[in-house]
């Protein structure tokens, strides 16, 4: 079961790396739409990878020696928890692009201008017409 633990550790670290990319993108990108691009993709992928890594750790924690000898009741609780974690991953896989799309459309309809060229770099257009309530 050490292989499952190593796989889980690699998946969690890979998720952290993708979230580092998302965080750098959210801070450094010039306008709202490109920030949305970085946040939506990186956030979804890193969340799914980290939850899959946690599922690998949960399955590795099952006392497999007792299960092979016929004590299947030890198998119930870790499998149930793993299914719940996988359901969270599935939920985030559906809802995160949906909320990203809704926020993007709301931002477009509330008149945020994209940052089109490097020529007018001094005044970022999205800074000006802010319908800030």
């Amino acid at each position, binding site marked *: 079961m050490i292989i499952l*633990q190593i796989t889980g*550790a690699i998946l*969690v*670290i890979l*998720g*952290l790396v993708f*979230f*580092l990319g*998302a*965080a*750098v993108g*959210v*801070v450094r990108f010039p306008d*709202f739409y490109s*920030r*949305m691009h970085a*946040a939506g993709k990186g*956030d*979804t992928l890193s*969340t799914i990878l*980290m*939850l899959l890594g*946690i599922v690998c*750790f*949960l399955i590795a924690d099952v006392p497999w020696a007792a299960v092979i000898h016929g004590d299947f009741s030890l198998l119930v*609780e870790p499998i*149930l*928890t793993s299914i*719940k*974690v996988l*359901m*969270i991953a599935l*939920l*985030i896989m559906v*809802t*995160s692009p*949906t*909320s*990203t799309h*809704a*926020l993007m*459309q*709301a*931002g477009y*309809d*509330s*008149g*945020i201008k994209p940052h089109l060229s490097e020529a007018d770099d001094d005044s*970022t257009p*999205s*800074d000006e017409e*802010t*319908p*800030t*309530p």
Partner: protein
Amino acid sequence: MELFFKLAGMALFVLMLPIFYRLIAGPNAMDRILAVNVIGTKTTVLLVIIGMIFARVGMFVDFALAYALLNFIGSLAAARYYHQDRLRQERGAS
């Protein structure tokens, strides 16, 4: 293994800090809503990691599920609010 999850949770929290910067300094309201959405999604993962540290994942995973649902509903409600705000302004202007 507990040390690994402590380190992973600490790294996740440290990586949330740039997004806190975007939440405070974001030029307009939609950037702030975006930052809240990202932080909420990552808090879901952080709750599961806290469950792994305490070896009580079966309890914490329910919190994480409820948090993910509330985060999704909150961000959809905010997006819908700003959408309708713009439409109301257009209708008032014309």
